């Protein structure tokens, strides 16, 4: 399936939680076919930026354009092309992993066979037909990642996706992120995992106290971030 957005453009984004300024006028353009890694210390606004991009939080001011679509005016249309992985798996513990994937496939209006396709792609094994409640952290994270890909997203937002994954799982995650980028998706990754970041980043941005303080090529950011 072709991607829906050529780019995602964030303009002067401000998000206040009461008196706390989580984002203080962030502007950046996220191009399709590239992985942007968002870095920064705790409380720098990384997750808030992801929440705004996922349309889960309404910006106090500023705008986000998904290709030609405005995030506020065309929220449902944009959601059709979103894939989001956060700290929580968003899976129902009493359903099996496969049932969860089928459920989300139905909600996204894609055939339920997409769930089986993802199970094969992630080589999930027999645990996929057990209740999610019985999964290990790593298994949960793998199925949660599969869930994020159900809609063949044009914008893939990943918040600490390597949490709980073993070495093989991280390697599979790297392959998935690269495959999504090569498919032409806009990929945004929030992580503290330097090794993962080094392997997939085309571009790295650094947030500090809600402001964008660095925006550069994946390979040169370390010096930029440090300074």
């Amino acid at each position, binding site marked *: 399936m072709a991607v829906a957005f050529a780019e995602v453009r964030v303009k002067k984004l401000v998000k206040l939680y009461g008196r706390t300024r989580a984002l203080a006028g962030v502007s950046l353009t996220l191009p399709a076919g590239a992985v942007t890694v968002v870095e920064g210390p705790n409380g720098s606004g990384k997750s808030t930026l992801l929440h705004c991009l*996922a*349309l*889960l*939080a*309404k910006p106090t001011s500023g705008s986000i354009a998904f290709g030609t679509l405005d995030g506020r005016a065309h929220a*449902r*249309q944009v*959601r*059709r092309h*979103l894939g*989001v992985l*956060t700290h*929580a*798996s*968003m*899976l*129902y*513990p*009493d*359903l099996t992993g496969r*049932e969860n994937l089928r*459920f*989300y496939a*139905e*909600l*996204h*209006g894609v055939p339920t066979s997409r769930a089986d396709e993802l199970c094969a792609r992630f080589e999930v094994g027999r645990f996929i037909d057990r*209740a*999610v409640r019985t999964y290990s952290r790593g298994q949960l994270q793998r199925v949660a990642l599969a*869930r994020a890909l159900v*809609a063949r997203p044009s914008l893939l937002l990943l918040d600490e996706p390597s949490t709980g994954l073993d070495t093989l799982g991280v390697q599979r995650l790297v392959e998935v992120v690269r495959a999504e980028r090569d498919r032409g998706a806009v990929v945004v990754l929030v992580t503290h995992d330097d090794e993962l970041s080094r392997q997939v980043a085309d571009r790295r941005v650094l947030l500090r106290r809600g402001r964008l303080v660095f925006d550069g090529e994946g390979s040169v950011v370390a010096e930029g971030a440090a300074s």
Partner: protein
Amino acid sequence: MSLVRAAFVIAAKDLRIEARTREITLVTTFFAVLVVVLSSLSFYLDRNLAVRIAPGVLWVSVAFAGLLAVLRSWGREREHDAMRGLLLSPIPRGAIFFGKAIGNLLFLTVVELVLVPLVAVFFHLELDHLGTLALLLALGTFGFVAAGTLFGALGVRSNARDLSLSVVIFPLITPALLGGVVATRELFAGAPWVEIAGWVQILAAFDLVFFGAGWLLFDALLSD
């Protein structure tokens, strides 16, 4: 995806989970049965008094069982933050409200199917007007479920969720409970339809208001 289709997909998911765990129906039915049994032991003096007490016992049981059902139903959306998965889906937000409401309605219907014969036995009722009683229960349950589902969603993001729902919902459903109790009392006392019809209209209006509010306000209630 249309609102109706999305609502049924969400309701089917809830029913599948319930068929597997039987958590909501078992706990709420057990609780409702306990209320009926204890009430019959505490308040029973003679047949005449029993018939006058029965409507209150029936509706109190339904209301408390309904509260438990709604709390647990939304609790499932809180685990692993599944609610966020629903909010990220490209469906009308109203579909989440209607989907959850359909599930809650069916759970509560199961409770009532056990409750009504039980109340009849313990309070010596002759269920001559079963159709009218079913209508009253259906309308009252619709209203309760609409209000409970609407405000139960608020609890998904609140730390004081159980308390806040209890505090919010009971004042809101008071008109439906009053209407249900009085209409049922009249029915058990042998009142003609014309005397009950007014209460039926009140219950129907309450249902319309809360289903309409749920449909229209759900998005706003869930926005940060």
